[in-house]
């Protein structure tokens, strides 16, 4: 063999050895991974692994992502990399049961048509394009589930969203939840408005809405009573029997439900809106006591509200609307133990255990030791923070339970059988006791369903979830009716580390801007009104023969208006000045300083070398 041919053969052999070796180690060593991120972002939760382990039929995931369109949006690009990594990790850990493909839907391509048909929601870009960033999942029988759009603000729920989709594709049927509610949450309810909690529940479960005249409760895995209307004897009996039969009930009761009285699209509260709700006959049978005329407050964790004091707008903590931080939650109950951000509530009620009950009462949300009680009628009058402070008296039995879990055997609230009345109920089907241990969740607040309590709307950055209300309800739903494996997934921390300093600067500038703007706008409006009044009387014009003093006053007003307008423009210009200055400083230190230092070092070193005697 000639030398060049031999050389070529050796080189080709080396390359083939490299390729073969790495293809082999890629398969053998792929699972040996060390997630060095501080929060273990790429370590899958035990719940995910549990879902992946029990998949029986292969699941196909199509990650639909408009790579080119997204290239112009750094935040989306960064988040897409995180989503891709998470999907790859899940696929890698599924033993081949989850197959992953990435689809880049070109404009007017069949891939784009398929993405739209599947229900993905493209976002229009500034250039007129469409940005797809979602997920389509199929199973062997061609059931389909989608994540319409991966919202970077929802990063903490990413793993949950993906795993829920896989779990839903894998399960044989969708669990059913029957819902009784006086809130305008049902899709066809009068004044219904979109509610993220209900939307998420509806995405994961078959929700069967019962109207207030219901005469039967259908077969369901769980029953949700969300601020229920006053039930008739027969309806109460149906709920009682459902609880005994399935043992799975969630009841959200409220002595002062702001969400129920919220004006609908017509500007009015819904017809027959109920301020308070109760289950007077059922709760004692379940082992809990609750007074619908008393609300709880907590001055230690009051939420900030904007109030007008002496004509000035201020932020004050409001004890009637407060947050239950992780410290106020049960650590032994996974649906709440996993929450990290706290749950926001609005004038909730107080629950307590009934002595001698067969069920075990455990508080899952509670006030701080500074919790206090207040009459619900007083709370309905929207007292100011000062008024509340004046009458605030820490309850001797604080912390007060705001939500509780009742577990154990249940006895019927109707020991003598079904009530006589309008419904023909079969006494033969009557149950006096539950078969096994029931699991009843009581929450003494309906306002925690209100997005205003847990979503911070931001038209620029996108809405931000600021409390775990949504996660709490979904966790409870999973614990009662769905897949408990998903519970641990919902509250994983986000990988996004915000530029805190920039955010602080922005917030400070905004606060300054708002305060000054309000001040100047008021000054401007007052000056304009004054000037208009002068003009109306003709005193502001020299032509009208007005006194020199009045003309001078009008001139001064015009000058004030001009000055106020100019200052307003200055504020608008100055809004980003500090942030821009920070960016310029960082550019200087990171882009210009290192090369200049290297240049200087090089000059000095080469100069010294030349001077050194040889």
């Amino acid at each position, binding site marked *: 063999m000639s030398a060049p041919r031999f050389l070529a053969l050796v080189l080709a052999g080396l390359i083939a050895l490299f390729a073969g070796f790495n293809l082999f180690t890629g398969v053998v060593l792929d699972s040996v991974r060390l997630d060095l991120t501080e929060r273990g972002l*790429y370590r899958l939760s035990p719940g995910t692994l549990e879902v992946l382990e029990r998949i029986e039929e292969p699941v196909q995931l199509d990650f639909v992502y408009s790579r080119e369109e997204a290239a112009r949006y*750094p935040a989306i690009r*960064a988040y897409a990399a995180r989503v891709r990594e998470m999907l790859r990790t899940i696929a890698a850990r599924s033993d081949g049961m989850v197959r992953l493909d990435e689809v880049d839907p070109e404009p007017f391509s069949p891939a784009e048509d398929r993405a739209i048909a599947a229900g993905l929601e493209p976002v229009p870009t500034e250039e007129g394009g469409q940005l797809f960033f979602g997920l389509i999942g199929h199973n062997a029988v061609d059931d389909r589930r989608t994540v319409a759009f991966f919202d970077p603000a929802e990063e903490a729920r990413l793993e949950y969203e993906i795993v829920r989709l896989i779990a839903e594709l894998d399960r044989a049927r969708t669990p059913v939840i029957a819902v009784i509610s006086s809130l305008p949450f049902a899709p066809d309810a009068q004044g219904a408005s979109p509610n993220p909690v209900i939307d998420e529940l509806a995405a994961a479960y078959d929700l069967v809405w019962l109207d207030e005249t219901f005469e039967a409760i259908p077969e369901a895995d769980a029953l949700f009573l969300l601020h229920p209307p006053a039930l008739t004897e027969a309806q109460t009996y149906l709920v009682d029997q459902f609880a005994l039969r399935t043992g799975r009930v969630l009841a959200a009761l409220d002595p002062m439900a702001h969400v129920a009285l919220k004006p609908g699209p017509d500007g009015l509260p819904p017809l027959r809106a109920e301020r308070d709700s109760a289950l007077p006959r059922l709760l004692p049978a379940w082992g809990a006591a609750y007074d619908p005329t008393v609300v709880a407050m907590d001055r230690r964790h009051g939420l900030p509200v904007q109030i007008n004091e002496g004509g000035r707008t201020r932020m004050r903590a409001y004890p009637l609307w407060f947050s239950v931080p992780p410290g106020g939650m049960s650590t032994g109950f996974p649906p709440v133990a996993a929450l990290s951000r706290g749950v926001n509530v609005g004038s909730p009620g107080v629950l307590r255990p009934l002595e001698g009950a067969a069920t075990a009462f455990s508080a899952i949300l509670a006030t701080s030791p500074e919790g206090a009680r207040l009459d619900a009628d007083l709370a309905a009058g929207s007292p100011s923070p000062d008024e509340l402070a004046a009458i605030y008296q820490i309850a001797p039995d604080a912390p007060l339970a705001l939500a509780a879990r009742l577990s154990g055997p249940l006895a019927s609230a109707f020991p003598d059988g079904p009530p006589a009345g309008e419904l023909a109920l079969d006494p033969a089907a009557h149950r006096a006791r539950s078969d096994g241990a029931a699991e009843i969740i009581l929450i003494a607040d309906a306002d925690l369903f209100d997005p205003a309590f847990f979503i911070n709307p931001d038209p620029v950055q996108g809405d931000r979830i600021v409390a775990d209300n949504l996660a709490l309800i979904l966790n409870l739903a999973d614990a009662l009716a769905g897949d408990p494996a998903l519970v641990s997934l919902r509250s994983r921390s986000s990988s996004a580390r915000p530029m805190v300093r*920039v955010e602080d600067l922005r917030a400070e500038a905004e606060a300054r801007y708002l305060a000054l703007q309000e001040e100047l706008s008021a000054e401007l409006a007052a000056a304009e009104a004054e000037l208009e009044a002068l003009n109306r009387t003709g005193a502001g014009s020299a032509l009208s023969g007005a006194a020199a003093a009045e003309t001078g006053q009008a001139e001064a007003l015009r000058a004030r208006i001009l000055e106020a307008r100019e200052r307003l423009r200055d504020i608008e210009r100055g809004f980003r000045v500090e942030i821009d200055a920070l960016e310029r400083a960082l550019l200087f230190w990171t*882009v210009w300083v290192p090369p200049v230092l290297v240049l200087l070092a090089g000059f000095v070193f080469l100069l010294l070398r030349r001077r050194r005697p040889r």
Partner: protein
Amino acid sequence: MRALYAVYRRELAAYFETPLAYVFLVVFAFAAPSFAWQVGRLFETGRADLAPLFDYMPWLLLVLMPALAMRAWAEERDHGTLEMLLAAPIPLWAAAGGKFFAAWTVAACAIALTAPMWIAMNYLGNPDNAAIATAYIGTLLIAGGYLALGQALSAVTGNQVVAFVLGVGACFLITVAGLPFVLDALSARLPGAFAEALAELSALARYESLRRGVLSLADLVYFISLMALGLALAITLIDARRGAGR
């Protein structure tokens, strides 16, 4: 080992005794952060991490590492010093290793010059420093892979410009191997398994996990074997030349 260290010291001194290393360091120290700030729009992401820096790092390295490696053997051949080196009582692997580690040290210095950005992120927020440190390890490894390939191609020719162009070409191929446009084009003509295998061998794909803070043994093995491949190719090519000259 002593021979390897001797070559390493000689090569490192050669870099810093001429303006070459300084020019390289200045270009790198300016280009890497500029890409992150201007192209990656680091500030606009609002996130205290260095993702935009590490996003562009492989592309910057695939141009700059061959520039650093091109002189390794081509210069020796051009200046006629290769024969002297080969005649010296130094094993060939020590010569190749010494040259490689010297260039890798310069590359490490260049990468270290982006540290002010790391400090800046800590000033702006609370970045995941463990993840950033892992990404730096990944950057160092991909730089080593590119340098080794560049060095192998520097052994092919006596012309440094040709060595540079060949090096960039090879680094480009191994970088883009896993990108969708290559795989789409290939899977249309070749069996899907081939495209999948090629994607497995892409340096970019292997760098991806490290960039996010995940250290995989397979990726580590890949980069070490890529460096070993580069050095083995260089040694084979130089050895063949020695044999031919004999």
